[in-house]
């Protein structure tokens, strides 16, 4: 990984982007805004799956998903820009790889919901109790997104070797 990071850092694109002084703080601001869109939108669906927000049908709450996905795409884009600009900071950090792993958990969990649970969940009445599987999926989603946030914010202080 160290070699790959060194190569990436030596590319013209990495140097050019890193030399744009406002780009890093601008990406950070967007990364925080995307985070709020993602946790807000996905969080409400997760809480409903956990059985809270009775009165809201899951098919209604799901209308927020484009905003959650939009927030995720903002963060994927800005996150890749961070990676290109400072590859060493991330690729050699165990905490960053833990963040990627939690992203994988969150993604697999969302895929499981879409493929296995969406049909019964969308048919539920606004006041209906959710099944145990739905509660597990909602809880795991909340946990993994906050774990992603934790690893990202703690990255400068954990496991970068300095």
């Amino acid at each position: 990984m160290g070699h790959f990071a060194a190569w990436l850092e030596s590319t013209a694109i990495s140097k050019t982007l890193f030399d744009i002084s406002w780009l890093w703080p601008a990406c950070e601001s967007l990364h925080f805004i995307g985070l709020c869109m993602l946790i807000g939108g996905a969080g409400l669906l997760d809480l409903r799956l956990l059985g809270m927000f009775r009165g809201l049908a899951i098919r209604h709450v799901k209308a927020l998903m484009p905003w959650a996905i939009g927030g995720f795409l903002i963060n994927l884009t800005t996150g890749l820009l961070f990676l290109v600009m400072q590859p060493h900071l991330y690729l050699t950090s165990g905490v960053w790889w833990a963040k990627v792993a939690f992203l994988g958990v969150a993604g697999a969990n969302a895929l499981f919901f879409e493929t296995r649970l969406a049909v019964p969940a969308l048919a539920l009445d606004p006041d209906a109790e959710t099944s145990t599987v739905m509660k597990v999926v909602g809880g795991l989603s909340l946990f993994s997104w906050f774990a992603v946030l934790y690893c990202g914010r703690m990255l400068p202080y954990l496991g970068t070797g300095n």
Partner: protein
Amino acid sequence: MSFFQGLQDSAFTEWFLGSPSIWAYPTVLTLHTVGMAILVGASFVINLRVLQVSGLIPLHGLRPMYRFIWIGFAINLASGLVLFVTEAADRVLDPVFYVKLASIAAALVLVMAVKRRAIDPPASPLVASGLARSLAAASLTMWTIAIVAGRLMAYLKAK
């Protein structure tokens, strides 16, 4: 000014910023981000719904969302106070800090005004009033300014 300088130079600050423990500065900073995600995330959901750009979730059903707004706010008030104390003398002279505080206050007042007009009435219609929508748009804008100002504060920190 010497009061704020005293806070910034206190033994607490020295421990907080100098401690190698992840439970000092890094954890309080992370709590501030977690609180932001809860507070602004919940506000985004309400404002986007009132603006009619996230489907037809029954407006009254979003009332419990305000509990999360206050939970997130409490986390960030507490963590923010700790962070402020350790940079007090610099921050009281930092115009960006005042922009952040003012936009948070405005965003909160606006999202509460949205609550009274669009969320609280039990028989609220599916489409919020024009006024409620304007308030929601203003609240969204203020949260965005608060986040950008907060991020920029890290770059304008006095050395």
